[in-house]
C-alpha cells in the first residue's frame, strides 16, 4: 500500500537542453544535456551557480567529491570546471568520452576513445592507459582511488597509476556497458550488451554471469553498504544480494513499476532505499531490500513526474532527490524522514 503523502517539490527549474546526466555532491547539483549544455545548481534552491558548454554534446557529468570541480564528457571530448572562479577547460579531442570518475578531489579519470586518461584538476594529464579493444564505455575506481577499472569490449582492465598496461584483466567476451564496484571492495560487476551481468570476485577473479535478461544491461548500481546491486535490463529492476558469499545460486528481488527503466539511484546510507525512473515519466521510491529473494516488490511511493521520460536521478544528500526529465525540467523532491520514504 502506497502512502498518500506527496513528496514536496523543493525546487523546479528548466534547462534549455535534453538532460542526459546528473551529479550531486556536497551542496551542488550538475545537470548535463545531450547538446552539451552543463548547468551547475545550488542543491538547496536550484539557483544556477555556474555553467559551461561542451561542443558536440555531453554524455555524462561528474562533480568531484568535495564539489570543488566538475568533469563533463561527450562524443567529441571533455571539459573541466573549477568552482572557485568558474574557469572552464574544454578539450575537443575528437574522441568519444563516455564517462568520468573522480578518484579523490584532486584526480579524475576520463574515458577518451579507447583509453582512459587520469588528469589533475587543471586538466593536466598525470597518466594514461594503453588503448583498450574498443571505445571505453565506463570507469570506476577501486582500492580507495589507487586502481582504475576500465570497461570496454572483451574485458574490464584494472590499471594502477603510471602503468599503461593493466595490472589485472577480467576477461569476458562481450561489450561491457556499465561498471559497478562494490564499496566493500569485494566485487566488480559489468552490465553487458548481451543482456547479462558479469561478476568477478576481486580477491581471486572468480567469476559468474547472471544471464537471462531480456535486454542489455546499461545501468548498475551498488548501495552504500555494498551488499545490494540494482540493475536494469528488464521492465523489472532486479536487486541482487551481495552480502556473505555473494549472489551465486540466489534469486534477485524484482521491482515492478516501469516498462523501461531510465534511471537508478540508491538513497545515501545503508537503508536499502532506492529511487528509479522510467521512460513513462514515473519516479518510484522503494524499500528495495525488503521481503525475500525472488519476491516481486511494489513501490513504496510514486512521485508525480512531468509526463516526459525521466533522464536521470541523483540524491543530493539523503533528504533531496533530484530528477531530470527529458523535456529539460529538473526537479528536487524533499524526502524529510530519515527512515521512511
Amino acid at each position, binding site marked *: 500500500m502506497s502512502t498518500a503523502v506527496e513528496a514536496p517539490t523543493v525546487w523546479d527549474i528548466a534547462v534549455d537542453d535534453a538532460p542526459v546526466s546528473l551529479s550531486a555532491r556536497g551542496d551542488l547539483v550538475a545537470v548535463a544535456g545531450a547538446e552539451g549544455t552543463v548547468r551547475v545548481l545550488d542543491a538547496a534552491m536550484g539557483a544556477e551557480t555556474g555553467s559551461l558548454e561542451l561542443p558536440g554534446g555531453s554524455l555524462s557529468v561528474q562533480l568531484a567529491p568535495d564539489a570543488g570541480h566538475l568533469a563533463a564528457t561527450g*562524443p567529441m571530448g571533455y571539459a573541466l570546471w573549477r568552482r572557485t572562479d568558474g574557469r572552464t577547460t574544454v578539450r575537443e579531442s575528437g574522441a568519444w568520452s563516455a564517462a568520468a570518475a573522480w578518484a579523490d578531489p584532486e584526480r579524475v579519470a576520463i574515458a577518451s576513445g579507447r583509453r582512459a586518461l587520469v588528469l589533475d584538476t587543471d586538466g593536466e594529464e598525470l597518466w594514461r592507459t594503453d588503448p583498450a579493444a*574498443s*571505445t571505453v564505455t565506463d570507469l570506476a575506481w577501486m582500492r580507495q582511488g589507487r586502481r582504475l577499472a576500465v570497461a570496454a569490449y572483451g574485458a574490464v582492465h584494472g590499471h594502477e597509476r603510471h602503468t599503461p598496461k593493466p595490472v589485472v584483466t577480467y576477461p569476458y567476451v*562481450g561489450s561491457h556497458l556499465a561498471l559497478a564496484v562494490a564499496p566493500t571492495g569485494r566485487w566488480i560487476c559489468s552490465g553487458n550488451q*548481451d543482456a547479462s551481468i558479469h561478476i568477478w570476485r576481486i580477491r581471486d577473479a572468480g567469476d559468474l554471469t547472471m544471464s537471462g535478461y531480456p*535486454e542489455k544491461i546499461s545501468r548498475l548500481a551498488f548501495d552504500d553498504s555494498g551488499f545490494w546491486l540494482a540493475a536494469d535490463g528488464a521492465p523489472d529492476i532486479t536487486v541482487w544480494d551481495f552480502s556473505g558469499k555473494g549472489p551465486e545460486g540466489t534469486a534477485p528481488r524484482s521491482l515492478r513499476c516501469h516498462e*523501461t527503466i531510465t534511471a537508478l539511484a540508491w538513497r545515501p546510507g545503508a537503508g536499502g532505499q532506492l529511487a528509479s525512473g522510467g521512460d513513462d515519466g514515473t519516479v518510484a521510491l522503494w524499500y528495495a531490500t525488503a521481503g525475500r529473494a525472488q519476491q516481486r516488490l511494489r513501490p513504496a511511493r510514486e512521485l508525480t513526474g512531468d509526463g516526459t521520460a525521466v533522464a536521470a536521478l541523483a540524491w543530493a544528500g539523503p533528504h533531496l532527490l533530484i530528477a531530470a526529465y527529458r523535456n529539460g525540467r529538473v526537479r528536487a523532491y524533499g524526502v524529510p524522514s530519515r527512515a521512511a520514504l
Partner: protein
Amino acid sequence: MTTTAESRDTRVPVTVLTGFLGSGKTTLLNRILTEHHGMRIAVIENEFGEVGIDDALVLDAEEEIFEMNNGCICCTVRGDLIRILGALMRRREKFDHILIETTGLADPAPVAQTFFMDDEIAAQLRLDAIVTLVDTAHVLQHLDEVKPEGVENEAVEQIAFADRVVLNKTDLADEETIGHVIRRVRAINSGVRVIPAQHARIDLQQVLDVGAFDLERVLADDPSFLTDTEHQHDATVTSVGIDLPGELDEDKLNPWLGTLLRTKGVDIFRSKGILAIAGAPKQYVFQGVHMLLDGEFGRDWRDGEERRNRLVFIGRNLDRKELERGFAACLATAGAVA
C-alpha cells in the same frame, strides 16, 4: 490532427549506404544532403571527414564489431553505431532520416544485425534499406577477385545484402558491360532493384524511405524475386527463391527453419518470405539476417486467394534442391502430394 485505424510506424528510418571506395557514396550523400527535400538528416560516416554540410549533423564513427554471446556464432553488432545512435536519439532535435555510410570494406551484416539485436535502437529506429553503390566499369573485377580461404569478398557481400543497387557511372561503361554487371548482380541477389545512374543522380524516393526491412512490405516490391537467373557456375553467392502452393505445418516449419538458420546461418546472408500457415487466417511474414529472424503475422489472406508460400534465401553455397526439398516437407499435406 488526424487519426488512422492502423498504427503508423513513427520510428526514424535509417538508410545504410555501402559500396567500394570510388563507387560514388560521397557524391550520393552530398546529393541527398543538398537536395531540397526539407528533411532534417543526420549522417554517420565511417570514412573520415568527406562530407560537411551545414544543415545536417555529421558524426564520425570508427567501426567496432562486437560478438554477441547468444549462441549464434555469426552474430555480431556494431558497437560504434549503438552508442552513436543512442546519443543521437537523446537529443531534442528530431531527425527525419539517418544515413549510415560504411567504409568500402565494411561487412553489412553487423550493421543490419544491430537493428535486430539492440532493443533500445529497435524501439526508436528502423532499418529502412541497405543501398549499395557500384562503379559499373570496375565492379566486375571486385566481384571476381579471388580471396584467400576464409576471407570474404566484400563486394559480393555488399551486393548480397543490398535492397537497392545503384549502378553508378554508367556513362563510363559500355552497354555490354552494363548488361553483364546487371546479370551478375542478379545472379547474386535476384530480387534486388537495380538503379542505373550517372554521377549518383537518382530519384531519392528510390532509395530513401523505401521500407525494404518493413515486414509489411517484404517481397511486395520484389516482384521479380523468383525470376530464374542466368546460372553462373562460378557464383558461390546466389539467391534461391521458392514458390510453393499449400499450407505449412507450423510444427514442421519451425524446427526446419530453426535448424537451417542455426546450421547454415553463417552462409545465409538474408532471407525473407510470406508464408501460409495451416489454420492461420493471416499471412506470416518474416525477414532475416544470418541467424536472426524477425517475423509476424501480416494481412489476412483474402477470400479466394490461393494459399501459397514465397520465400527467398540469399547466401553462399546454397543447395537449391535441398532447400526446396526441406521446405516442401514442411507442407501440412507433405507426403500426400510428393
